[in-house]
């Protein structure tokens, strides 16, 4: 077989990259294969460890009715935001990945992250930070990019929030109003601006980022100066004068820090980014940086082709996976395998009216047979589908329907795992990091020792 490695990581998101680097550090020869770009560019770019212990107990067995539309008024208060993520790990449900691998794995995962990506803050403390969201609330997170650091909610400096009229995703006036209602300890005002001429109404945020990165001339003026000039008259809108200015997170791609610095200098106030949903520039930057760290760790990788099948021996040990190259299937062999293909969003889990499945290796995914038990009426309730995923042992090896190990040399990491309600817990990146580190080490061990039992 032409293409072989010690460890093969399937999936190029946060969990996959972490696993690959983790395995490489154990001395394994690692190859990573990803079908598409990582879904990190859909996420805000923040690294959440554990932010909430959400309420549970909604009844998934009720027949839906026209009258019962979801008891928003009866929604129980979630516990949080949690100032300290590690202490709360033991209070998560049994099957949660953090319970399987332990809080120490979360610490290792964060530590590895800090080494791979040195432009993020937050490692100076165990505590979560509260970051303003583009919906106008605040959310707890463990690591945040330097460009976001100026906007932390626990800082008392007066804040001006600026929005762009052509960016429909948030209205700065509304964001400011919402922030006040969450009781933030700083004065805040919001202003909406029209972008300099030359930037069309429906242009993408990457256009703004590019214009600022390259300091393009917009109507004759360099973009950064033009933007600063637009903001400057509004610094007095907030009581005491704005000491910091928050903008939608599109202040650049490769040069965001230089852009923020120049804007801050021109305005005499700290300029920071407010993380957005997709398209997320911070998510994109993070993804780029993580791929650089793959290269630095000596991991070989390729993107563009999906894994569509697997070759196993009599004991269920995977010998090779089959990669589809536009119609031909090529085997890629490895001793240790990491499956980090994502969940329902990353397409590592698939479903139809009959059931939910893991389409690449065929790992068992526990779920109710009745599909009307996959959800509850309250959209923000304890949704069963949010916890769907592969169940594993403490070495992250997938378990079959009977509870036995399905593939002895496969280790599952990230959103492919079940048992966590990452959306409401605010724990998605932490789960990827913690399980990525463990899966990578385990796979490297299998490759080094040849032992799977």
């Amino acid at each position, binding site marked *: 077989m032409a293409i072989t490695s010690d460890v093969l990581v399937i999936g190029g998101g946060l969990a996959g990259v972490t696993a690959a680097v983790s395995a490489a550090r154990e001395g394994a020869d690692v190859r990573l294969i990803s079908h598409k770009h990582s879904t990190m560019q859909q996420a805000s770019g923040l690294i959440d460890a554990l932010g909430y212990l959400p309420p549970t107990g909604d009844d998934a067995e009720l027949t*839906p009715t026209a009258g019962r539309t*979801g008891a928003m008024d009866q929604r129980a208060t979630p516990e949080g935001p949690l100032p300290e993520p590690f202490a709360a790990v033991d209070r998560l449900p049994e099957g949660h990945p953090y319970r399987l691998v332990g809080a120490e794995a979360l610490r290792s995962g964060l530590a590895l992250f800090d080494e791979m990506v040195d432009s993020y803050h937050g490692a100076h403390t165990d505590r*979560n930070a509260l970051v303003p969201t583009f919906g106008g609330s605040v959310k707890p997170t463990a690591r945040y990019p330097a460009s976001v650091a100026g906007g932390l909610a626990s800082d008392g400096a007066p804040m001006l929030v600026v929005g762009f009229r052509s960016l429909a995703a948030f209205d700065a006036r509304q964001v400011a109003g919402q922030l006040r209602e969450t009781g933030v300890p700083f004065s805040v005002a919001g202003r909406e601006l029209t972008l300099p001429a030359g930037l069309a109404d429906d242009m993408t945020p990457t256009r703004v980022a590019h214009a600022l990165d390259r300091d393009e001339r917009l109507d004759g003026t360099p973009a950064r100066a033009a933007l600063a000039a637009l903001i400057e008259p509004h610094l007095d809108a907030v009581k005491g004068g704005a000491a910091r200015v928050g903008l939608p997170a599109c202040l650049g791609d490769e040069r965001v820090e230089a852009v923020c610095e120049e804007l801050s200098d021109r305005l005499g106030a700290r300029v920071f980014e407010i993380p957005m949903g997709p398209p997320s520039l911070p998510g994109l930057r993070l993804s780029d940086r993580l791929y650089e760290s793959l290269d630095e760790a000596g991991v070989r990788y390729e993107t563009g082709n999906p894994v569509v099948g697997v070759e196993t021996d009599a004991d269920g040990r995977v010998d090779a996976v089959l990669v589809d190259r536009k119609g031909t299937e090529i085997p890629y062999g490895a001793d240790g395998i990491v499956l980090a293909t994502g969940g329902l969003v990353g397409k590592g889990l698939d479903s139809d009216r009959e059931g939910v499945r893991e389409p690449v290796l065929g790992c068992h995914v526990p779920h109710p047979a009745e599909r009307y038990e996959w959800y509850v009426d309250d959209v923000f309730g304890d949704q069963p589908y949010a916890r769907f995923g592969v169940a594993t042992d403490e070495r992250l090896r997938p378990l079959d329907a009977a509870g036995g190990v399905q593939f002895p040399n496969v280790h599952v990491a990230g959103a492919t795992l079940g048992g966590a309600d990452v959306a409401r817990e605010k724990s998605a990146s932490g789960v990827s990091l913690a399980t990525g580190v463990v899966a990578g080490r385990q796979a490297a061990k299998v490759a080094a020792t040849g032992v799977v039992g």
Partner: protein
Amino acid sequence: MRGVDVTLVEKGNLTHGTTGRMHGLLHSGGRYAVADQASAKECVEENFILRDIASHCVEETGGLFVKRPEDDESYFQAKLQGCLDCDIPAEVLTGREARAREPYLADDIEKAITVPDGAVDPFRLCVANAAGALDHGATVMTHAEVTDILVEAGEVVGAEVRHGDGPRTSGRQPGSTDRIVADHVVNATGAWAGRVGAMAGVDVEVRPSKGVMTVMNTRQVDTVVNRCRPKGDADIVVPHETACILGTTDEEVDDPEDYPEHRWEVDLMIDTLAELVPILKKARTLRSFWGVRPLYEPPGTGTEDPTDITRDFFLLDHGDRDGLPGMTSIVGGKLTTYRMMAEQISDHVCGKLGVSAACRTAAEPLPGSHDIGRLHEMMDEFGLRSPVSRRSAQRLGSRTEEVLQTSGPNPVVCGCEGVTRAEVRDAIDDVGAELNAVRLRTRASMGTCQGGFCCHQIAAELAPDHSAATARTALDDLYQERWKGQRHALWGEQLSQAMLNHMLHATSMNRDADPARFDTEVSYDAFDPGRPTKETPVAADGGRPDGSEDRWR
């Protein structure tokens, strides 16, 4: 239009009842051409009238009655003859010709009958009628629930209404009541007609029956496709705006506001209609919803199966029927024949009031349908992408120019349905901060992502006129309403969408645990205030500086 002083009260939004939950079919009458020819004739007549007076609410899709090999040939012939008997234009196509028109029809469909079915947008239609009424001096009160019919000296003299909570435009205080005195009360409450009748002490035996409608993400067909067999479940696909709607079932219910929504109904739609359009089996559904038919038959008819109850309408003068003058109910019927029903009841009431002016609604275009032809020339002026300006113009009709000529950036707020800021704001100006009403008028959040990517963008348009708290509640209402229908579509791509929406709203925005909603006191000083710098060398929790040079902490 005839000079009568009219007040309209509606307990919810306009289209709160069956109108807002119908299939979107502008009947040619073909469906009744065999078993209910009275209804069929009414339908075809009104079909052509509505194409003229409400052209911006109607899409002239045409319709087909298709025959599969196992469907009865004699019924096919009876259908064809029935159409001709009712003056419904009809022609026979071979299977090949039918597939030439609709390539996704099943290969083994043998032949089809063409009929002039169309697709109608009930929201737009209703809003246009209300606008027309307002133009002629009527008063329209939404969120005004009738709590009592006032009877004095054996005669109906008016109604008592209670104004509902939540944002609405009738300008009354929530919770307050009003007495409305009137010379005549018209009970046009559809499936609720019995309840309103009971308030007056009369029996109106409406037999509400529910039916499911499953909304597909895209249009697998652009023609209304009916199955050519006796009326039964899952026998029609109706194109509607950017989607197709599969329908339906027929189950009697006790309470028009609360009844079970069953999985088997959704599965039945997909599996059975896939016999006509096979690709439906793997196509994406966005949601399912149910509507309740306001069926009525005269007491004593005794039909058991709701499918067999007539779709004809009935005018019940309670003076004649129950000895209680001053009120008339109009029950039964179909959306397609709404104008005819309205004409008849109006004629009746005008007769009572001594008003002699004649009905002109069949000839006069509704607001929005004037001068539609000019629109095509004007599209380029709005600076929008072609498909977006076309869709906007289809929705706004003759109001397009007035709405879209705005100053300032006009970005698209709902990308799936091509709805710009100007259109959303126009709707907010009309209905206030009730985003579900904005949704019905503009189609924003009714597309592929079911609001995951635009609910908050729509809510952002409430600034600065509405407070942050109002916006938050309105957003929650809209987002939850979108969930209500999506829960019936949670597999495949829609389940993936639901999870992405959940991550965006819960993780990225933290709307599920927003401290502002829960009145949670957040101890801000217990959290990381930022990395220590040379100015502030010790972090709040005693963390040590890492010595790096960093300008913004």
